[in-house]
């Protein structure tokens, strides 16, 4: 195994675009070897743009086969030190109209994906390794997002308990992003977008790089006494009226 690579290698899921791409880019800029995981084949293009110190893995985190593919890729590069569970999907609908398929699919990726991947990979992390789960401010509840909020809220309890269970060998934390500028939020109609922004004390959407900075910090020794925590990165929205 390449010891120096293990010290600076990270797996980022949902890395083809959006927040995941931002996280992958930030780690790479800091000198890490980044393993970008995504179901979308264009993760290969994203990895190529970020730079040579990357590995693209096309895999479905919601399946045992996908987890096995990621595990094999990790072993091929000689191990890793950090895991960032970012991949997530939305299938929004009011509860009355939500289909069982929309509920299950969202839950299976957003909550089941991290659980499946941690089950498969935690044993491969070295002493001092880290796990960061990306939740959402929507975990506090949102119209039309019963499935999404439930899955992202589930990650919070999972993170707290796992932080205890895996200590002192590993640290486990979560980030709860607010409104972040991505392709997904760019598609929101202007009127709704302005309404959302009016409720954010910092008066702007967050950038993927601002989530990435926190993920990098939680994966570094600078946060060595932090585990089982949830950090809200939402421009102050959580406690605003």
């Amino acid at each position: 195994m390449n010891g120096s690579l293990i010290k600076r290698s990270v797996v980022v899921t949902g890395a083809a675009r959006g927040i995941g791409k931002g996280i992958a880019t930030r780690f790479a800029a800091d000198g890490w070897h980044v393993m970008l995981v995504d179901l979308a084949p264009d993760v290969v293009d994203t990895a190529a743009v970020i730079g040579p110190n990357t590995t693209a893995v096309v895999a479905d985190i919601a399946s045992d086969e996908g987890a096995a593919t990621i595990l094999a890729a990790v072993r091929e590069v000689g191990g890793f030190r950090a895991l960032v569970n970012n991949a997530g999907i939305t299938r929004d609908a009011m509860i009355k109209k939500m289909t069982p398929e929309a509920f299950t699919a969202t839950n299976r990726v957003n909550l089941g994906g991290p659980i499946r991947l941690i089950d498969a990979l935690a044993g491969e992390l070295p002493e001092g390794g880290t796990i960061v789960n990306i939740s959402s401010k929507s975990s506090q509840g949102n119209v039309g997002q019963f499935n999404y909020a439930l899955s992202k809220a589930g990650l919070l309890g999972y993170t707290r308990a796992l932080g205890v269970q895996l200590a002192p060998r590993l640290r486990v934390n979560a980030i709860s992003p607010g409104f972040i500028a991505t392709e997904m939020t760019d598609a929101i109609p202007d009127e709704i977008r302005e309404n959302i922004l009016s409720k954010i004390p910092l008066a702007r959407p967050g950038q993927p790089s601002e989530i990435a900075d926190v993920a990098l910090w939680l994966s570094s020794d600078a946060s060595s006494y932090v585990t089982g925590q949830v950090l809200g990165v939402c421009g102050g929205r959580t406690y605003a009226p």
Partner: protein
Amino acid sequence: MPNHPGLVYDASTSDPQNWDALEKELDEVFRLTQEAVLAGLPIVYVVSEPAIWGHQSPLRSALATALMGGARSAAVEGARNGLAANVVATDEGVDPVQLADTIDFLLSSGLSGQVLTCGTTHLGRPAA
């Protein structure tokens, strides 16, 4: 037993051993919640208070906080037509009558989006 109609889903002693078991339970929560919403009935999820704080297994804790997120979403959606959704957090030391009274209160009070704690886990451990 609560006297008021509504969905009471008790997950307080549920202890899923793997993702498949947790997924099956959450699918059932969704099915029952949708039925309640369509019928215009209030919802109360009962969860383990120690699980909320991460004092139990990761999967059990995931179940507890997942239901909190689900209840809040149901509460936000239900606010338009007066449909309430709440959570009761309990632990093994709670008097069953007190627990039933709390559930019954939430089924009829009009409060929504709340987490009412019957247990004492949130108070921390007593001094030795």
